[in-house]
């Protein structure tokens, strides 16, 4: 009986740990990103970036940005740099208005002083990313 119980416990443990190893804990990265918003920015939203191990080529959210307000979107990923995750901003007509990739260099945040009210798409893509996993926070200031 004891052997059966141990065997069941081991089966559950191995299964669980394997599943966890393949998971993207995006929540922990979003939590880490919120306090990293620059001084003066008020937190608005947090966004999970889960590329599902590379099966997704982008993760997208949308938000109404307002003229006269400055927004900041930052990125948090495993490791020290941004792990190839690029955040880009598109207007309602899908014109690109901002990106964290500038001349081949990827930075960890964009500051966007909005001059045109409307729906914007916040798109995260993976440019040579290893983990395809991260988090992001959106803040505003007037």
């Amino acid at each position, binding site marked *: 009986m004891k052997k059966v119980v141990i065997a069941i416990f081991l089966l559950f443990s191995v299964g669980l740990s394997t599943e966890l190893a393949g998971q993207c804990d995006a929540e922990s990265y979003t939590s880490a990103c919120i306090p990293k918003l620059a001084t003066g920015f008020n*937190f608005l939203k947090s966004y999970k970036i889960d590329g599902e191990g590379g099966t997704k080529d982008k993760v997208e959210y949308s*938000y109404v940005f307002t003229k006269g307000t400055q927004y900041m979107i930052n990125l948090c990923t495993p490791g020290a740099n941004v792990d190839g995750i690029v955040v880009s901003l598109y207007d309602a007509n899908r*014109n690109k208005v901002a990106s964290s990739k*500038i001349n081949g260099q990827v930075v960890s*945040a964009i500051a966007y002083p*909005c001059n045109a009210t409307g729906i914007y798409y916040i798109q995260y893509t993976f440019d040579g990313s290893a983990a395809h996993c991260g988090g992001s926070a959106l803040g505003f200031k007037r």
Partner: protein
Amino acid sequence: MAKRNVMRSLIPMIALVLLAACSSGKKSDEQAFLESQDTARDNGPTIPEEVIGSILQQIPSPLEISAMLKESGSRYEPGLLNSPDNLPKYNSNYKKALNLGVFGTDLGYTNIYQKSKDGIQYLSSIKSLANDLNIGQFFDIETIGRLAANSKNLDSLLLITTQNFNNINGYLQNQRREHLSVLLLTGGWVEAMNVVSQAALATPSNKELQEKVGEQKIIIEKLILLLGFYKDDANMAGLLKDMQSLMAAYEKINIVYTYKESTVEVVNGVAVIKDNSSTTIQITKEDVKSISALVGAMRDRIIG
């Protein structure tokens, strides 16, 4: 051998009993909640929850309007807010969810203006409504109260209250109770809209306030879309009708968008964008007057 056979047949049975126990307990809680709902969930939308979720997340925080009001020089006007003493009026879950949104906006407004004493007045009403809607676990009133007691904690206070409301919306969507999220956001938006339209009326020379009223056309379109998913419910249909009347007043208002490629420079590791696009909002003082009257009437029905 016989003992082993008994064990073999017992394990799946125990598992079944445990599963049944767990699921029946969950169903009982859920059933109790559903029975307490006066919003007809069964008549709810058949569209995927992701669609509702993606529209809900587009709605901007009322905090942005409060911050704009303060920056524009508008005076703090507590008389424009809903009184927390109105709490006993809210007996249905429909009213509770709407007014949780209203009080959330009022709390944010008092926080932005650093009127923490006024803000504290809202905390117990917020907690009470949240408890009644089974989402009270998301409000740590002790922490919020402690932060509110010291004006130096404004940033932390704004952060924690925003997180609480975000967590509630996420939870409600996971629980397939998005209709409550829709009500919460609608109540919060109507309250913010009432404050800004009253401020615009009071200072007709302030073009920025007028434009702020005008650009809400984008949000109304989203709210109409959301409420339309629940139009088979009498309460939601009433709200939808109000929102459609408001939209009719917005028909004359044009938001003209001009796209021009933005430029960028990297400053201290941050890509700082220069937005060269623009919007022009075509709205008159008369438009503001008719809109604020409609918003005021809608708000009276919500808080009354």
